[in-house]
């Protein structure tokens, strides 16, 4: 079965977006243009919140190493703790920590929305768009607050 959806704009001009490529020929008359290049499709707001969720997840996966390193050092000894504190006063370290924690907070907010949607709330097209806007607004607020707290 096709695991995708059709976006129909004016008649005879539509793009088929699919996960996997085995069903494009069946779904669309082969004479019609098929557009599978995400870079050329105007994405809805829900697509942006979704891709940001993925990007923030990858950033966090890499960031685990930095967080574990800092935690290791801060717990190993009193000098290590002081070193981590000292390091966190530099603008570069503050920026890195702010970036990492921003990814964490965005991922958290977008993840909570997923759990809410799993309960059946906000699953319609309109609900999905509204949910995406709420995610962007809430995460922007907490990320700004985080910046204020760090600096």
């Amino acid at each position, binding site marked *: 079965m096709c695991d995708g959806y059709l976006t129909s704009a004016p008649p005879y001009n539509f793009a088929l977006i699919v*996960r*996997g*490529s*085995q069903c494009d020929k069946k779904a669309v008359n082969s004479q019609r243009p098929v557009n*599978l290049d995400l870079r050329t499709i105007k994405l809805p707001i829900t697509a942006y919140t979704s891709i940001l969720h*993925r990007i923030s*997840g*990858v950033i966090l*996966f890499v960031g*685990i*190493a930095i967080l*574990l390193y800092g*935690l*290791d050092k*801060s*717990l*190993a000894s*009193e000098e290590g*703790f*002081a070193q981590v504190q000292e390091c966190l006063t530099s603008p570069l370290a503050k920026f890195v920590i702010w970036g990492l924690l921003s990814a*964490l907070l965005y991922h*958290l907010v977008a*993840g*909570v929305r*997923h*759990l809410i949607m*799993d309960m059946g709330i906000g699953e319609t097209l309109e609900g999905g768009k509204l949910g995406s806007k709420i995610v962007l607004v809430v995460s922007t607020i907490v990320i700004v607050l985080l910046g204020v*707290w760090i600096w």
Partner: protein
Amino acid sequence: MVTNVTNFSRSGLYDWMAQRVSAVVLAAYVLFLLGFVVCNPGLGYAEWKGLFSNNAMRIFSLLTLVALSVHAWVGMWTISTDYLTPMALGKWATTVRFLFQAACGVAMFAFFVWGVQIFWGN
């Protein structure tokens, strides 16, 4: 078409559930730790060390490490099967994807062991 022999549990539904359950554990840990740091502005080494020496905290931390391992694997697997496909990479897609997933698995295992050393070794 990407087959799913490499996913966490060989069941999409189980992976879906594992991702959600681990997410709740991770959220609880993150909120607790952020709350602790925000509520203790002049945090010193003794308090910091004391928090992580507490047995309940050690159990919570280890639970979070397990949840993190599961969550990261499901997430990185999902991303690799969505983007590292024959459509994007041609005939080498399976090799590239396998190597990427192997690297993620090794990295996550290293993070897990390192985490255990930090939480239970110090």
